[in-house]
């Protein structure tokens, strides 16, 4: 029954059409219910589906075919168990792994699906599970609830049916947004009866992934109301500051915009794995070739030799002639030579990766103490790709930054506060031990507020008027809403974290913003409540880049307080002589702040007399009621009053980077990893962060900004930038001819050890470019016609910053690079808005941050801090890659050495597919005898320890260039395998042909020769892996020598007399004890080892003498240093400390030393100002000032072009709020 509609639904939905509270009517359309499903299996279909999926892997099918072949006695050259046991092991292990993974997914699905939500049913509220919510249901949300599905807001507890939502999980923006219900539906309030009887019909767009766009209509009571994005609550948002609201479900479950945005999760394969799959085909072709050769050979042999040997070995009835024999032999050789593609390869790879993942989970240096978060490798199949990353796409908020704004410094009246000095008067970087300034004078100060400069407090407590004005301004001039928690704590609801930080700072310095009504602000100034009458709010916008308030204090003085970007404020300062000094000093301070990556704001004040104000007020009123060009006229009026200001000072806010971000970025750049920042933030914010984390530097030749709104604009901008770079390059090329990809001389590098990471700040800045592109320009840049040009430009730039990008654009950018650059990409982020990019990139990393855990849940790796990325890539990634490459190189070697012996032997047995080994040996060779040493190598090996991996980021380059495992290396190891197999066969042949034992018995029987070859093989391949092992832990010793031991042990056991009593299938009875007593066996073995190993040794030494790799140089360096450190252990410990100290201080100096940048950094959007003054937004629970009728919300259909606001310096305004304003 379910099936049919399910098929029907496949038709693409053109328009959504449903009726509220009418399940019967809505059932006609089969809209998805609110249940989400990310799991792949159910308990009853697991076996079938899983097997089906597993057999999608060509390899598994191949092995099953082989198995079937082996059951045909006519061609079976090996016992079927030789394949059966490994294939069952593989399938079983994979199935268990898949099951465990799916159980996790089930659990997380269930936890979401089973959340409770209140639904309006029969005039009452009924608790229902999320998964049972249907389109057309009316549900109630309470404060701090997660929005259940995509809802049409019907009514809310707040005035004017406003609700506040946080969209952090959706788009990463943490500021609150406002949504407002239609007036007609708002009237229903919380009248359950009315809500239940609400029978509006919605016709709207089909499910899509545009987060900021919605079009539809509500037809109710014979009226049509248009619905836009402002009336919609999207799943993934959280309700804030709103007691309750009711909403009508429009899209549910998989059809919600959030889910539509998450993108399909695709099975990620590493590039090595893709190469491996190609190689497997190649090997398979080689296998077919060998089998063909042997089949033809056998035909020839049967024709010219076998035919005469029929007296002793008659042809079988099923192969009456040589052609049939050759045909059958083809299959027999396919079977016998199949071990060139060993099944255990894939199992081993999975297990190695699992082991490596555990090491990531266990790494204490990637454990985030504050949140008790260890690093998690959620996907255990991508480890080696961590060693090959070329591009990192990073989110900004919560990833690079902590999303915490801190009031860090300020300059008041020409005195700079905020620097911390030690006893010797040297500026230091405060750490946890730096004593905090004394805030005891202020009861409202927050415990965790950190400010270290006592002088500022002294200045306030001593009554310095300038300081008082400074903080008074901060306490008055803003659009923050105060709130009191049930516990009685005062908290602020700020629209931007910057504002919050400033108001909070004022609070801590004794100017506590207490409450706000539509026309007053109450501030507790050093314990004394003062109420100011707010006469006007001259709100922020991106052109003005400033905000002013005009207030009248209790004694009737009218003042204008203004804060804004320095350039803007400076233009409007009065030009009195005495101010000149102040301006200069402040400019100096501003430059210093900006140089440290701080976001600065200038503060200014102006006294107004009653008359001036009244005149202005008139003008203002006129402007605000003008019918034409209202905006322009208002601006002009504002301009008029904001003149001849007196500079108070400037604030410096730190958009607190996560710990170690600049260092990490610097080090990763040294490892030739290109870092792109993709953020939903505005351009200024993004650029500012770019500077403070050293992605953009003053030394850069140019930072291009692309902010066009049309295709042609963007195209022109890209072309212009590209040409600029080309010009620059052609001019500069003779100078910068040095190739930064060549490995620097090791001597240079030893000196760099001491300087550590500081090096990068001096190097290669001369010809670098940065690129900043806006989201609305990116739309065009990602157009098919332009995308390659855009990519070319981006590749020429050292840093790329994309701002105002949507989640899907993030993914598209990643796809673009992934597709066209053939590079390995990594995306790192923390919010739901990063999910699509995390899924799109080769590797997704989630930061378990403030913004929920969606990013983590869709990521492949997760940890608490951005800086761990350095260790993940440079240490774990590099090691994993190196280990995996060693593993592959060795694995093919050992299997070719093993398998091709059959081929050589074929030429001595008429190419009849006689195995050169015992079946038992064939079964155990890959599983038991040779699996553990290389497995342990792949788990434990470290060519260099972690400190060196981080110290010398260039060690990462071989991974990016695929140097350790590629087609060339693959062929090398195969050829080595073939040569070894030749030695393995022909040396025993020479030593044993017509051989006799000292007691006269013949030694040249099949079983003895098999044993000799197997023994030599085991010893040689074990020695080979021993040569490859560069890190001999006790475990490696145990397994390497242990596998030789286990070989002899098992050989003796299996070939002993005892087992033969049970079964005649143990044909090799007595061979071990007969063979191993022959001295000639041992001499043959030593000879084989010498012949196989010495050339390897010789060539490795030769290469390391003549063409040492960078890695080898560092290895020697490490060896030398360790030797030295052993000699003077104590001193070494001290010097290490000294080095880290030095790194630290050098780094600090470097940062300070960088040229100051004129800092405009006003992270502030067009605010709530109008909402406040019009009283539409008053404080919660402060409804003592109702505004009846004052501003009746009008239904204003959104301007059609609202998604493309006027191009104001490339910064889009906050459209949500913009449209909220009464026009």
């Amino acid at each position, binding site marked *: 029954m379910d099936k049919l509609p399910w098929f029907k639904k496949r038709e693409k939905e053109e328009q959504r059409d449903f009726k509220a509270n009418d399940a019967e009517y809505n059932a006609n359309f089969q809209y998805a219910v609110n249940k989400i499903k990310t799991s792949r299996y159910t308990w009853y279909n697991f076996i079938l589906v899983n097997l089906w999926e597993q057999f999608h892997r060509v390899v598994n099918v191949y092995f099953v075919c082989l198995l079937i072949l082996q059951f045909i006695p006519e061609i079976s050259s090996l016992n079927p168990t030789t394949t059966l046991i490994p294939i069952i092991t593989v399938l079983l292990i994979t199935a268990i792994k898949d099951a465990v993974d799916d159980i996790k997914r089930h659990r997380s699905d269930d936890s979401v699906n089973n959340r409770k939500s209140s639904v309006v049913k029969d005039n009452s509220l009924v608790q229902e599970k999320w998964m049972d919510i249907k389109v057309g249901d009316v549900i109630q949300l309470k404060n701090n609830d997660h929005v259940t599905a995509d809802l049409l807001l019907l009514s809310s507890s707040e005035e004017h049916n406003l609700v506040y939502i946080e969209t952090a999980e959706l788009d990463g923006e943490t500021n609150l947004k406002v949504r407002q219900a239609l007036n007609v539906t708002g009237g229903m309030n919380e009248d359950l009866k009315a809500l239940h009887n609400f029978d509006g019909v919605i016709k709207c767009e089909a499910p899509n992934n545009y987060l900021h766009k919605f079009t539809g209509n509500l037809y109710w009571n014979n009226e049509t109301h248009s619905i836009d994005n402002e009336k919609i609550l999207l799943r993934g948002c959280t309700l804030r500051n709103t007691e309750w609201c009711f909403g009508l479900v429009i899209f549910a479950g998989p059809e919600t915009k959030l889910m539509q945005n998450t993108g399909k999760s695709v099975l990620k394969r590493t590039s090595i794995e893709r190469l491996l799959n190609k190689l497997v085909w190649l090997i398979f072709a080689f296998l077919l070739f060998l089998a063909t050769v042997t089949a033809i050979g056998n035909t020839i042999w049967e024709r010219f030799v076998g035919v005469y040997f029929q007296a002793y*070995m008659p042809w079988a009835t099923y192969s009456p002639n040589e052609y049939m024999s050759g045909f059958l032999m083809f299959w027999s050789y396919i079977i016998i030579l199949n071990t060139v593609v060993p099944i255990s390869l894939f199992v081993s790879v999975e297990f190695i990766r699992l082991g490596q993942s555990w090491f990531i989970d*266990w790494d204490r240096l990637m454990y985030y103490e504050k949140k008790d978060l260890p690093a998690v490798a959620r996907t255990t199949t991508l480890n080696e790709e961590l060693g090959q990353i070329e591009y990192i796409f990073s989110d900004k908020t919560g990833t690079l930054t902590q999303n915490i704004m801190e009031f860090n410094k300020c300059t008041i009246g020409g005195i700079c506060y905020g620097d911390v000095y030690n006893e010797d008067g040297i500026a230091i970087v405060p750490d946890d031990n730096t004593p905090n300034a004394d805030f005891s004078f202020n009861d409202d100060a927050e415990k965790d507020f950190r400010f270290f400069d006592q002088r500022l407090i002294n200045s306030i407590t001593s009554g310095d008027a300038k300081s008082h004005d400074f903080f008074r301004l901060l306490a008055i001039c803003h659009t923050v809403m105060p709130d009191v928690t049930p516990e009685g704590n005062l908290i602020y609801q700020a629209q931007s974290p910057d504002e919050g930080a400033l108001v909070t700072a004022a609070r801590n310095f004794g100017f506590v913003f207490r409450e706000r009504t539509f026309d007053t602000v109450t501030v507790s100034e050093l314990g004394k409540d003062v109420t100011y009458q707010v006469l006007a709010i001259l709100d922020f916008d991106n052109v003005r880049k400033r905000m002013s308030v005009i207030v009248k204090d209790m004694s009737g003085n009218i003042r204008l307080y203004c804060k804004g970007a320095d350039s803007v404020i400076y233009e409007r300062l009065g030009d009195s002589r005495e101010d000149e000094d102040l301006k200069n000093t402040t400019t100096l301070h501003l430059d210093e702040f900006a140089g440290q990556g701080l976001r600065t704001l200038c503060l200014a004040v102006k006294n107004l007399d009653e008359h001036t104000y009244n005149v202005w007020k008139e003008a203002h009123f006129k402007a605000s009621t003008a019918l034409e060009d209202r905006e322009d006229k208002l601006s002009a009026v504002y301009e008029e009053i904001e003149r001849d200001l007196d500079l108070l000072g400037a604030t410096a806010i730190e958009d607190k980077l996560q710990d170690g971000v600049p260092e990490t970025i610097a080090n990763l750049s040294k490892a030739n990893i290109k870092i792109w920042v993709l953020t939903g933030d505005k351009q200024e914010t993004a650029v500012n962060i770019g500077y403070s984390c050293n992605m953009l530097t003053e030394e850069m030749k140019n930072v291009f900004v692309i902010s066009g709104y049309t295709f042609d604009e963007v195209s022109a901008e890209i072309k212009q930038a590209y040409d600029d770079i080309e010009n620059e390059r052609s001019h500069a090329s003779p100078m910068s001819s040095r190739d930064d990809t060549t490995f620097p001389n090791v001597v240079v590098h030893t000196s760099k050890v001491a300087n550590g990471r500081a090096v990068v700040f001096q190097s290669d800045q001369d010809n670098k470019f940065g690129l900043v592109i806006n989201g609305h320009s990116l739309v065009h840049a990602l157009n098919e016609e332009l995308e390659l040009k855009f990519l070319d430009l981006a590749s020429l730039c050292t840093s790329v910053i994309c701002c105002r990008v949507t989640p899907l654009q993030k993914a598209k950018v990643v796809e673009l690079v992934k597709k066209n650059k053939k590079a390995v990409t990594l995306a790192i982020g923390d919010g739901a808005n990063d999910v699509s990019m995390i899924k799109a990139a080769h590797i997704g990393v989630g930061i378990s941050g403030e913004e929920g855990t969606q990013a983590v849940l869709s990521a492949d790796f997760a940890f608490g801090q951005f800086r761990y990325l350095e260790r993940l890539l440079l240490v774990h990634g590099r090691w994993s890659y190196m280990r995996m490459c060693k593993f592959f190189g060795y694995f093919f070697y050992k299997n070719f050495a093993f398998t091709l012996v059959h081929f050589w032997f074929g030429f001595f047995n008429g190419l009849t597919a006689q195995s050169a080994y015992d079946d038992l040996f064939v079964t155990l060779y890959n599983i038991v005898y040779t699996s553990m040493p290389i497995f342990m190598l792949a788990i434990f090996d470290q060519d260099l320890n972690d400190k060196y991996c981080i110290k010398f980021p260039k060690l990462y380059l071989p991974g990016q260039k695929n140097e350790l495992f590629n087609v060339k290396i693959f062929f090398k190891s195969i050829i080595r395998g073939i040569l070894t197999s030749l030695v393995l066969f022909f040396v025993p042949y020479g*030593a044993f042909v017509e051989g006799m034992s000292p007691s*006269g018995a*013949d030694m040249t029987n099949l079983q003895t020769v098999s044993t000799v070859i197997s023994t030599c093989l085991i010893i040689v391949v074990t020695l080979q892996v021993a040569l490859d092992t560069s890190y001999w832990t006790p475990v490696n010793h145990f397994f390497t020598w242990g596998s030789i031991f286990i070989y002899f042990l098992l050989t003796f056991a299996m070939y002993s007399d005892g087992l033969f009593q049970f079964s005649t299938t143990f*044909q090799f009875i*007595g061979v071990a004890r007969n063979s191993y007593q022959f001295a000639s066996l041992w001499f043959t073995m030593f000879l084989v080892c010498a012949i196989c190993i010495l050339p390897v040794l010789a060539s490795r030494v*030769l290469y390391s003498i003549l063409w040492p790799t960078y890695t080898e140089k560092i290895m020697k360096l490490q060896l030398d240093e360790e030797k030295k450190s052993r000699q003077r252990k104590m001193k070494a410990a001290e010097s290490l400390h000294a080095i880290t100290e030095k790194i630290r201080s050098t780094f600090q100096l470097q940062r300070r030393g960088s040229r100051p940048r004129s800092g405009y950094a006003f992270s502030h959007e067009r605010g709530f100002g109008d909402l406040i003054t019009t009283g539409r937004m008053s404080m919660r629970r402060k409804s003592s000032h109702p505004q009846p009728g004052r501003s009746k919300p009008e239904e204003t259909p959104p301007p059609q072009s609202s998604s493309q606001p006027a191009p104001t310096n490339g910064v889009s305004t906050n459209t949500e709020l913009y449209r909220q304003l009464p026009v």
Partner: protein
Amino acid sequence: YNIESASVTGLDEPEDSKKPDNTAFKQQRLPAWQPILTPKSVLPTFFIISFIFIPIGAVLFTTSDGVREDFVDYTHCTNSLVPNETCASLRENRTRMNEPCTCVVNITLNTPMTGNIYMYYGLNNFFQNHRRYVKSRDDNQLVGTHVTNTSISKDCTPYRTDTVNGYQAPIAPCGAIANSFFNDSFTLQQEDGNTVNYLTTGISWYTDHTVKFNNPFPSNNLTAAFSTYTKPKFWNRYVQDLDTSNINNNGYKNEALEVWMRTAAFPKFRKLYGRLVNTNLPSGTYSLKINYNYPVTAFGGRKRFIISTTSWMGGKNNFLGIAYIVVGCCSFVVGVALCIIHFITRHKNVE
């Protein structure tokens, strides 16, 4: 999309810290030996190898050299009964192939042989390692289990059963290997006409004789034990008649059969035929009388009779000795070459 699965990332459990254990294993700080292939550490290896291998090679070579071995190829020996006719051609003649044929050939010992002396027959171009040939046996039968014409291993086809008195009797021992059992016999006479006596027991592996080959019940009465079986097609006698004089060398436990059943690895092989314990064979010409039964010329095979002493290394084979000396020398040359390169480049680096 999932909000409340914070437990996955560990947000929910503040009590017991998830901080990973600080063990050397988990932090990948296990104490380890980190050898690096530097010229300093590797170059001595080449010299050590050469200094070890060359003397070993010399010892092996002289040891092999000390082994006395003489052989005669009698493939085309003349029928001693019919002049101008070779036994080989007689065996190829379909009508007369069952006539007995004896040859007498001379074998010259250039130096006297002392101690344990071994006699071998050698075959060339005989594919005992053919896959189907190797398989064509029933170990179950050979270990002493009674088999019927149905339970006998299918691997033995086409030498599985044979028609006896109109019914299918299982062949004992079945299979191509047993069927092609080498059946020439040799008598060695000294110049003075004395026959050299040799033992045909003690020539097979101890494990083969005691474990792998057993006669079926009743093993003390082989006629009864093998009464339900028939002989292999090519044989002219039954398995219980292989050595009627010694029950411990009869039936499946016949050592010559055991030796034959241990299939050779290469198409050129020799198998132990008899042994002389602590004997002194003076140098000179011996005459070897051969009961020529085994046809090999049809497939281009050759037959040899070999008589040899052994050393602690086994038979005569110079391969190992020479190989050791060659490898030792190569190792030395490579060592020297690497040394030179090393010193040249080191010199350059200093500059």
